[in-house]
């Protein structure tokens, strides 16, 4: 192939030169060029090396179906592999390289693979994985890991950047009445029809220019039609989006669009996203997605200098590039005649081979007068040439029996093996295309979707027929939306060729070994398909996976039909009986960045800060994540480590007083005449008789009898409760209460409202906690032991006039209070509490100390109530009421849940008190460290009260069964084994005197 720029013509802007880099060389092109057209104009032939055999590959098409010119664009963090040179616009500074080659695509050492091609046939990976016969040498995972490193390096596509993606990507949402996909003659006509009817139209075009096949026609009439349609669309307010691919169609008229915003710009502004991932909802979709010309399998049909006839036509008419000078066109249908004329007019020497034995004399005569040599009953058999085609061995005769013919010199071979309508998007909707035996392609069947197909996507070949088809599709969409009976013009029929297409998929002659590719991107040959059949693969879906046919980045856009045809032949069936594989989204590849959008890094998930977040930081907090919340972890003083800090905080709290931010707890206002009834039904323990002014600890079960959550409920009046939940289950409890009230108990007169964000809270814990409160409230008597006894609740006023609600409840095991103020007053509350606490040598503490205090007490949290534990397993079974029915009461007593050998909550001490152990260790009987053991450790801490490490966990049968026995806390991948003993979970102050105090 020796491409060159034509002196004039094309849609490129010859006044705007563009400089870019290809394989470390400076190259120039024009605005309006693709990377492929610009390089073709420079005579470039080799763009990459093939997947397995490292054969040279060149330009095969002029669009998204490209399987040869696959390149890497960009460098550093912006290196983007597997970009089709045929769709990449050039811009000043573009940096592109051929891929899958070393040192470069022109001299690639990997080409040695070609010599071993015998071993790389279909199923190579599977067979290697299974061992190499006859000795099954190399079987097994270990040796595969070794092969894999080598294979991955040699086989494959380009290499993605390992650096974080520096670009931003946006997600967006669109709504419209009619989505039109494709802006060729059919798409434009459809969009104009719908827009004229006053509908809200979005037209998307994957190319950078509107016009589709109009762009490939050199006549002024086509250009006029294009311009008129664009003007009409603008006039009627249609939204027209170029560089936008409709990559998938989904339920309810939802389409996924990818808009490439800056991929064609030299220096995009930094605030503009590289791509936008748009979710569009439409009432009607019109698919004017066109058709793709396919090739035919014959010997060496993959070498550079072989492309489709339509592609050559595009390079001449749209890009002003003549792809070759001595050209052979091989066709089995009428569509290649136009391109043959185009090329002859552009100055090439053209020979046309038609596999059909007769064509109308007027057509061949016209070609002859324009200087095209026409040979009927002839086609391509085998291409010769190493780095590009230099001559072609012809086959003569007919499809029934080919014989070897002459060899003819050429520098470009154009193939036309028929056209495949792009039915991919319709296929996304689960509509299986059917075989059109007249046009030899898959087309849409009858279907029930709000989708209209138009133009060559329906196998309609002529431009004016496509326009009429588009108009009809537009009118049909309008009729559907406006609920009118379709008075629309009827669409033209499929087809449009004078002489029927010849069903030619592969060319071979007896006794000649050929290397005929059907999926050039994955190096799948015609022989691979036959081998797969020989090895017992008869389903087309299995064929695909075994040979990897159609599994490369082009997803078989060009090769699938030939593969199916060869499979059908091997099976002795017809193509429709073999069927086709299912097309799935995305139509063309989408970057992970676009899928991710802005949801990465700090924006990956929500961030919740308590209203005293800044206050905590200002007072020395180190923060930790608790779900979405940021909570204080510990407050280190004077360079303390976390361990030193939490031990100090734990001691201070037990000896004097500590303050901890508890705002993240879930808080629900439960109000109404039936509030008590609701609470009594959802908690497993008795609540009906909870007096006004009291709080109670409660445990909620799920319907199946397993513990859902625990928390407290405070009663302010007959009809007004304040429920707290754990931080982790706040949302779940709220949703469950809403579900119960709306779906099951709609007769209850009660409202639930999440007030988690409205109240900010601090726990005040320790022997001096009451003294701290007395120093902070306006009326110290309101918090006296009489006014606010254990489990008492009060609403009172702080010294600064802020209203607060206080309950005397304890998670730490000390005398303790939880107090809440409206969120805006959080810092003012802390500004009162903290100096008071300091006057008693108190401390601020975080989740680490919270954990230490509660583990010492054997109080459970989410790690113990893990969705598997029953209330009995957690040692709280005695709290559950037998006097009432509640959610989960029926199923908590299922026989299996009542077994006494179930894992039960226990405390854990090390045998040697100087030793420590870790949460997550498996508890095993001494001498039986194996399998899942008999239990596990959920939480550990150093206990300042006891002076050694302690833990909580579950063990089969519970405390009683293991008393006095040595148990092993097995932690094989971290610290090893530690001997422990099983104790009651209530390790400090088991009688609870301190908190009642």
């Amino acid at each position, binding site marked *: 192939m020796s491409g060159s720029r034509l002196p004039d013509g094309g849609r490129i802007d010859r006044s705007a030169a563009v400089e870019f880099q290809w394989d470390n060389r400076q190259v120039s092109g024009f605005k309006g060029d693709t990377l492929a057209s610009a390089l073709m104009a420079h005579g470039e032939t080799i763009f990459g090396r093939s997947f397995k055999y490292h054969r040279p590959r060149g330009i095969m098409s002029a669009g998204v179906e490209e399987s040869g010119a696959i390149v890497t664009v960009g460098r550093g963090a912006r290196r983007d592999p597997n970009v089709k040179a045929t769709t990449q616009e050039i811009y000043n500074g573009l940096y592109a390289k051929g891929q899958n080659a070393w040192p470069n695509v022109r001299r690639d050492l990997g080409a040695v693979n070609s010599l071993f091609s015998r071993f790389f046939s279909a199923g190579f990976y599977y067979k290697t994985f299974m061992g190499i016969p006859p000795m099954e040498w190399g079987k097994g995972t270990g040796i595969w890991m070794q092969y894999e490193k080598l294979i991955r390096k040699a086989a494959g596509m380009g290499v993605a950047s390992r650096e974080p993606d520096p670009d931003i990507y946006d997600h967006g949402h669109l709504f419209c009445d009619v989505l039109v996909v494709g802006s060729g003659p059919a798409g434009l006509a459809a969009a104009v029809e719908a827009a004229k009817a006053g509908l809200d139209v979005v037209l998307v075009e994957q190319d950078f220019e509107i016009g589709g096949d109009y762009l490939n026609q050199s006549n002024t009439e086509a250009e006029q039609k294009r311009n008129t349609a664009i003007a009409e669309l603008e006039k009627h307010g249609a939204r027209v989006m170029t560089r936008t691919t409709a990559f998938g169609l*989904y*339920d*309810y*008229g*939802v389409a996924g669009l990818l808009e490439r915003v800056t991929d064609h710009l030299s220096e995009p502004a930094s605030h503009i996203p590289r791509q936008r991932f748009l*979710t569009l*909802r439409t009432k009607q979709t019109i698919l004017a997605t066109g058709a793709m010309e396919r090739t035919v399998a014959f010997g060496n049909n993959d070498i550079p200098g072989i492309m489709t006839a339509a592609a050559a036509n595009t390079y001449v008419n749209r890009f002003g590039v003549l792809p070759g000078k001595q050209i052979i066109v091989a066709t089995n249908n009428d569509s290649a005649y136009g391109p043959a004329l185009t090329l002859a007019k552009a100055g090439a020497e053209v020979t046309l081979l038609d596999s059909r034995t007769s064509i109308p004399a007027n057509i061949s005569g016209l070609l002859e007068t324009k200087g095209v040599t026409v040979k009927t009953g002839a086609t391509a058999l085998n291409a010769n040439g190493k780095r590009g085609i230099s001559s072609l061995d012809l086959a003569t005769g007919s499809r029934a029996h080919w014989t070897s013919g002459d060899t003819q010199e050429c520098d470009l071979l154009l193939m036309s093996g028929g056209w495949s309508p792009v039915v991919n998007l319709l296929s996304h909707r689960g509509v299986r295309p059917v075989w059109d035996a007249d046009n030899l392609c898959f087309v849409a069947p009858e279907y029930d979707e709000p989708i209209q197909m138009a133009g060559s996507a329906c196998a309609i070949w002529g431009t004016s027929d496509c326009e009429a088809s588009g108009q009809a599709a537009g009118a049909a969409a309008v009729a559907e939306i406006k609920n009118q009976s379709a008075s629309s013009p009827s669409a033209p029929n499929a087809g449009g060729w004078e002489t029927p297409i010849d069903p030619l998929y592969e060319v071979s002659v007896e006794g000649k070994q050929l290397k005929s590719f059907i999926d050039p991107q994955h190096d799948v040959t015609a022989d691979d398909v036959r081998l797969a059949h020989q090895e017992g693969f008869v389903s087309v879906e299995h064929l695909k996976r075994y040979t990897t046919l159609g599994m490369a980045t082009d997803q078989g856009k060009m090769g699938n039909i030939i593969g199916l045809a060869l499979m059908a032949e091997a099976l002795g069936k017809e193509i429709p009986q073999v069927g086709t594989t299912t097309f799935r989204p995305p139509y063309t590849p989408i970057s992970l960045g676009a899928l991710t959008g802005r949801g990465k890094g700090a924006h990956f998930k929500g961030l919740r800060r308590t209203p005293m977040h800044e206050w905590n930081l200002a007072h020395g907090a180190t923060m930790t994540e608790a779900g979405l919340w940021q909570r204080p972890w510990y407050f280190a003083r004077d360079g303390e480590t976390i361990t030193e800090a939490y031990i100090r905080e734990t001691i201070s709290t037990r000896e004097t007083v500590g303050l901890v931010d508890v705002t993240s707890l879930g808080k629900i206002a439960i109000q109404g005449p039936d509030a008590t009834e609701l609470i009594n*039904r959802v908690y497993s323990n008795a609540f009906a008789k909870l007096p006004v002014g009291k709080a109670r600890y409660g445990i909620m079960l799920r*319907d*199946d009898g397993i513990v859902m959550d625990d928390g407290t409920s405070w009663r302010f009046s007959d009809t007004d409760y304040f429920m707290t939940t754990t931080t982790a289950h706040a949302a779940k409890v709220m*949703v469950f209460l*809403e*579900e119960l*009230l*709306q*779906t*099951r108990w*709609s007769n209850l007169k009660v409202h639930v409202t999440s007030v988690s964000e409205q109240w900010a809270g601090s726990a005040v814990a320790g022997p001096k906690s009451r003294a701290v409160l007395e120093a902070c409230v306006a009326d110290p008597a309101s918090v006296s032991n009489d006014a606010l006894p254990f489990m008492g609740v009060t609403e009172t006023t702080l010294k600064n006039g802020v209203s607060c609600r206080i309950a005397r409840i304890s998670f730490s095991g000390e005398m303790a209070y939880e107090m809440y103020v409206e969120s805006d007053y959080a810092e003012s509350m802390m500004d009162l509490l903290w100096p008071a606490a300091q006057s008693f040598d108190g401390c601020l503490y975080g989740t680490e100390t919270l954990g230490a205090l509660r583990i010492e007490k054997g109080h459970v949290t989410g790690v113990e109530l893990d969705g598997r534990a029953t209330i009995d397993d957690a040692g709280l079974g005695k709290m559950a009421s037998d006097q009432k*029915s*509640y*959610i989960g*009461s*029926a*199923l908590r*007593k*299922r026989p299996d849940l009542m077994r006494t050998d179930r894992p039960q909550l226990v405390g854990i001490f090390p045998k040697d008190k100087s030793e420590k152990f870790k949460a997550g260790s498996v508890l095993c009987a001494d001498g039986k460290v194996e399998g899942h053991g008999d239990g596990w450790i959920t939480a550990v801490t150093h206990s300042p009260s006891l002076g050694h490490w302690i833990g909580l966990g579950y063990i089969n049968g519970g405390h009683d069964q293991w008393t006095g026995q040595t148990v092993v806390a097995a932690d094989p991948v971290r610290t090893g084994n530690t001997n422990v003993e099983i104790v009651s979970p209530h390790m400090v102050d088991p009688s609870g005197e301190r908190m009642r105090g």
Partner: protein
Amino acid sequence: MIRINCPFCGERDHSEFTYGGDGSIVYPELDAPAEEWVEAIFQRENIRGVQTETWHHVSGCRQWLVIERDTMTHEIHSIKAAHEGVAKVLEAGT
């Protein structure tokens, strides 16, 4: 993407909702025998075709809805508020 026409908010993407579960279940009384609860909680039909299910408009009005949806096509045949009283008011209003 399923589009759900919430009776309170209008048509919205299903990403605003969470799926609840089988909407055809009549939950037993709390004091009903365990067998009835086993039936209600664990026994589920795997329906191919139209099934009744509950959805929660959790990122919207927080109302629970009862929806008849075809499991083959995702086509929604009916939507109403799960709360009986509210559903009646809405029906009367139209």
